[in-house]
């Protein structure tokens, strides 16, 4: 993190080594110079010059860019903190400058794909989505994210928060489908001591916790009707009324909601309030399912394989031709989440340079084994279609094979092959003996 300290007139007093590296300026040569001439940030030049010093005096956080000495424009986040004397007089300001360029190696693997936060893709559908995101992030309006399960709605919500002006504020997530209505109301809006049996103390709700940040309501389609009214009231008034309290307090919260359900259909059926739908649907982001994202399957396969190989300390170079053919022709009803799990399975199992078909989960290579994730069914769409494009694959419902089940099966198979010898089984699995012991206990495997 680059640090710059300026006096009340905006002249540089101190610059740390990190900022020297970022800007290319030498601290000993720039002390005493106006910060606008040194930092060369857009905001400094446009708003913070000597004749307009007001912007410098205010604290706050802003997305900006600076022009370094090596002639590169660098996106940064600048947080300004006024430095005040004991009498309240402004002595200067401290600016922390955060480099927003992606960390080398943490980005997408190859092909120069577009990305936003942790979401990557180079299909035309994702390009269109990425083009919208910076604009949506900068707006303060409510956002509704829709898409099938596993498409990355949570990632997108968090990326939106990180790219917004509220990035320094909290990002609070709550699953509207995970709690009963009464508990959810208390979770969301908080309660006052004595509001109900067991309410022994005041409790701030998620709205309060998300003050000056973003509240992410996932599975908004599962929000009970009484709470839909209360949420609508908040969106209109921006005032939160805790349970049992007549006094409300204002909360500066941006609401991002997500669902895999078809909300329009739910509105038609009277299961979701139309007015709330319109209030949330100010900005709508639809994440396309993976099967319709042209070219992204290969990109994501390579990306996750590379990342997992590094994490697991393997030297897997890629997928063998036949293996890749199977993976590219699979339909991924569980979308990116399923693809990631498949790659994790392969990376754990593969001890060679290239992933072979035998390293794939059985349901991909053996059509007789129904083990794929059932296709997520948005309300109104036909449920549970066959997961493979291969016409030879049997139609009908498929049973989800969770990673936990896969791990249990792998451990059991390794133990059988090693005739109960845990050291050998651990070596076969590519993990330490203690990890194997921990997994055996965790999954309750009888040895």
């Amino acid at each position, binding site marked *: 993190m680059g640090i710059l300290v300026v006096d009340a007139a905006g002249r540089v007093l101190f610059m740390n080594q990190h900022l020297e590296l970022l800007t290319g300026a030498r601290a000993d040569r720039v002390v005493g*110079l106006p910060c606008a001439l*040194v930092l060369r940030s857009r905001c400094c030049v446009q708003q913070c*010059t000597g*004749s307009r010093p007001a912007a410098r005096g205010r604290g706050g956080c802003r997305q900006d860019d600076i*022009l370094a000495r090596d*002639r590169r424009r660098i996106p940064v986040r600048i947080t300004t903190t006024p430095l005040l004397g004991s009498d309240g007089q402004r002595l200067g300001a401290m600016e922390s400058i955060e480099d927003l360029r992606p960390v080398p190696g943490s980005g997408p693997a190859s092909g120069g794909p577009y990305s936003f936060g942790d979401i990557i893709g180079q299909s035309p559908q994702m390009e269109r989505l990425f083009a919208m995101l910076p604009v949506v992030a900068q707006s303060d309006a409510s956002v509704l994210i829709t898409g099938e399960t596993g498409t990355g709605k949570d990632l997108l919500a968090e990326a939106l928060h990180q790219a917004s002006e509220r990035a320094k504020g909290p990002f609070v997530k709550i699953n509207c489908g995970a709690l009963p209505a009464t508990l959810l109301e208390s979770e969301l809006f908080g309660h006052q001591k004595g509001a109900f049996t067991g309410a022994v103390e005041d409790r701030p709700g998620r709205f309060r916790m998300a003050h000056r940040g973003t509240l992410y309501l996932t599975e908004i389609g599962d929000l009970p009707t009484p709470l839909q009214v209360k949420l609508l009231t908040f969106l209109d008034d921006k005032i939160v009324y805790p349970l049992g309290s007549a006094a409300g307090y204002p909360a500066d919260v941006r609401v991002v909601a997500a669902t895999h359900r078809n909300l329009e259909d739910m509105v038609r059926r009277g299961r979701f309030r139309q007015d709330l739908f319109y209030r949330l649907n100010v900005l709508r982001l639809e994440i396309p399912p993976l099967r319709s994202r042209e070219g992204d399957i290969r990109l994501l396969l390579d990306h996750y394989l590379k990342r997992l190989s590094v994490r697991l300390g393997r030297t897997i170079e890629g997928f063998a031709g036949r293996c890749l053919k199977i993976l590219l022709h699979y339909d991924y009803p569980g979308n990116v989440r399923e693809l990631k799990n498949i790659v994790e399975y392969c990376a754990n199992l593969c001890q060679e340079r290239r992933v072979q078909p035998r390293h794939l989960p059985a349901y991909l290579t053996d059509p007789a084994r129904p083990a794929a994730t059932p296709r997520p069914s948005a309300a109104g769409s036909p449920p549970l279609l066959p997961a493979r494009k291969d016409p030879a694959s049997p139609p009908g419902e498929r049973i989800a094979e969770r990673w936990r089940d896969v791990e249990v099966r792998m451990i059991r198979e390794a133990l059988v092959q090693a005739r109960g010898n845990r050291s050998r089984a651990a070596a076969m699995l590519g993990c330490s003996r203690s990890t194997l012991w921990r997994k055996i206990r965790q999954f309750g495997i009888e040895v």
Partner: protein
Amino acid sequence: MPLKVLIPLLENNVAPRFDLAAEVLIAVLDGRGTIRDRKLLIMPQASAEKLCQLILTEAVGTVICGGIEEEHYDYLTWKQVKVIDDVIGSGQAALQQLGRSRLQSGAVLQIADRL
């Protein structure tokens, strides 16, 4: 031989950013480095592309600026314009140093009061 010089300005100093400068100083130096002519131009809006266009149409020989992006630097040097960048200081001081053939990239000169 006279030399035409352009300096993007932020108030009276060399603008810290070429792409954000809305005011430029165009001066003519004679063969001995004396300032023979100077004019201030206000750009309708800050734009690096418009500035490059102005530099070419005005047949400027040397540009003195603060920060400039690689793309614009390469374009100007490709068009045979000499660019002395990363200069901090007043436009007047930069011109004087250039007249004495002492101005180099990275120079920190006298700052004008108004900034």
